């Protein structure tokens, strides 16, 4: 069940908190249905509608991220679907239901790793097929030809990088994740995440200048 409504209930402030002479209105911030934690609990209790709502809430972001990481839309669809199936299958093991979204992305990134491994294996066996229809250049939207060219250069560099470096760099430079988020989603330490991003950035810099955000640390 999806909860598309985002509404703001305008409620007057409680009597104890408002002056008696003037009516002060309190605007309760808009919320979009139950929290993830509620939905996870309902889903674990057997509520399939809650699963639908969780899907509706997180599918778009997950599919976008996986597409950018993989560079192939058909594979991204498969991987995203697998990530949801794994997440929904393991919901009972989720310790902090409020972190469902982050947990789902962790699973998705893990699946991306597996997909890259599979791709490499198929390439060795001469069975590789499919094309990069969702490279950064292909996904470019409303940018000039020069910028497209720069993105194509980035694609070319990323294509030659080790999977760990590629994923870490895309999470940081494309998705705008913080270093902590990169470490969390790739399942490595903060130091390792930094090292991978730096190594990838050094390779990218040889082809095109991409300015990364300052380290938070």
């Amino acid at each position, binding site marked *: 069940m999806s909860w598309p409504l985002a509404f703001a209930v305008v409620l007057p402030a409680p009597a104890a908190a408002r002056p008696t002479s003037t009516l002060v209105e309190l605007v309760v911030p808009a919320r979009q249905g139950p929290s993830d934690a509620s939905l996870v609990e309902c889903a674990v209790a057997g509520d399939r509608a809650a699963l639908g709502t969780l899907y509706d809430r997180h599918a778009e972001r997950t599919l976008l991220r996986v597409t950018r990481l993989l560079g192939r839309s058909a594979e991204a669809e498969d991987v995203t679907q697998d990530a949801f199936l794994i997440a929904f299958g393991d919901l009972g093991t989720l310790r902090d239901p409020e972190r469902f979204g982050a947990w789902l992305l962790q699973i998705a990134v893990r699946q991306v790793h597996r997909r890259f491994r599979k791709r490499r294996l198929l390439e060795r066996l001469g069975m590789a097929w499919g094309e990069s229809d969702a490279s950064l250049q292909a996904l470019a939207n409303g940018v000039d030809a020069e910028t497209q060219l720069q*993105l194509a250069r980035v694609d070319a560099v990323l294509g030659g990088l080790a999977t760990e470096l590629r994923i870490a760099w895309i999470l940081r430079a494309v998705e705008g994740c913080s270093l902590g988020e990169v470490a969390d989603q790739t399942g490595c330490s903060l130091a390792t995440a930094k090292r991978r991003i730096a190594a990838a950035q050094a390779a990218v810099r040889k082809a095109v200048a991409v300015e990364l955000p300052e380290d938070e640390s």
Partner: protein
Amino acid sequence: MNSDRPPLQAPLARLLESSPARPALQRMRARVLARTRQDPGRAWKFGLGWGLATTVVVAAAVFVFQSQGVPASLLTRDGQEFRDLSAHGTVATQHFADGSSLSIGASGRVVALSSTPQEFSVLLERGRLDVHVVPGGPRRWVVEGKWARVEVVGTRFFVERRPNGISVGVSEGVVVVRSAQLPEGVMRLAAGQSLDVLSPTHPVIENRPSLGAPTLPLEPPQAIRKALDPSPKAPVAAHVRSVTDLLDEADRARARGAWPEAEGALARIVAEYPTDARSSLAGYGLGVVQLRRGKQMVALETFEWVLGQRPPRSLWEDTLLRLIELHASLGQMDRAAERAADYRARFPEGRHQLTIARLVPQTP
């Protein structure tokens, strides 16, 4: 490196497409929910066995395909992979190696989405597409429009995309049309039948004669129902529908802003299936819709009912907050304080402590 250009600034995502294709999301939704069992906690273990079995079957299928030389993708008559087809002024036709063909009408455009041994899928971007699929082929053909998806194995049919909807007509064989705009989400069309699926902003579905043949009967347009009494003792409606159907109906109604209809569907779940595991969540949704419609007193009763269902912890928290907000907004500060005390006792570390403290300051 071209030093004339300013460096690209992270995050590069702002230069890229920011929304994935809707059809892909809808396809995945159906698959994910269909493959997740009733007990989500065990689905993965269950799926592992199926996964292994599927791997063996797929490996065998790949072996058979390779040994028989079946092409991995559908090729055009001149041996190329199909990518797209556009028509400028006149009809353009693409013939395929297996005898099938696509014809796109003037100013139309169709692009390939995927071509595998099992499926050939295209997106109709604009215009009218006439399709002839040779029966008995190994692939399922799929035509995606913005608001509908047409699936077929062996037939002749057309799909036409217009600014306000999609038309599908069948001249041979059978197709299956899937769309969130259809009453049950899916409809089977046989030869001689056609269907108009209008865009969500025109949520009327009409079925009209085509090619001189009679049409399939359609459910009449859903009249806006009066919301039922949220009490579990409310009479059960004569037309019994499953909880899943009603949830889907509520979803569709909400998506197009038909709040009375959404309220009606959710109220029926609460009234007719009070013991179902989903009823408390449906009740919460019902209360939210009632609030949306300005029915605060009714919403109050609904949220009270949800609490009576002893919902899961997080839903309990959310519902209590709604009640406190409502009592406060109605000036019932004693009731709000009672509920706030209840919340603090039950959820001393609760997520809504701060909000509640603002609404109902705690007395020492």
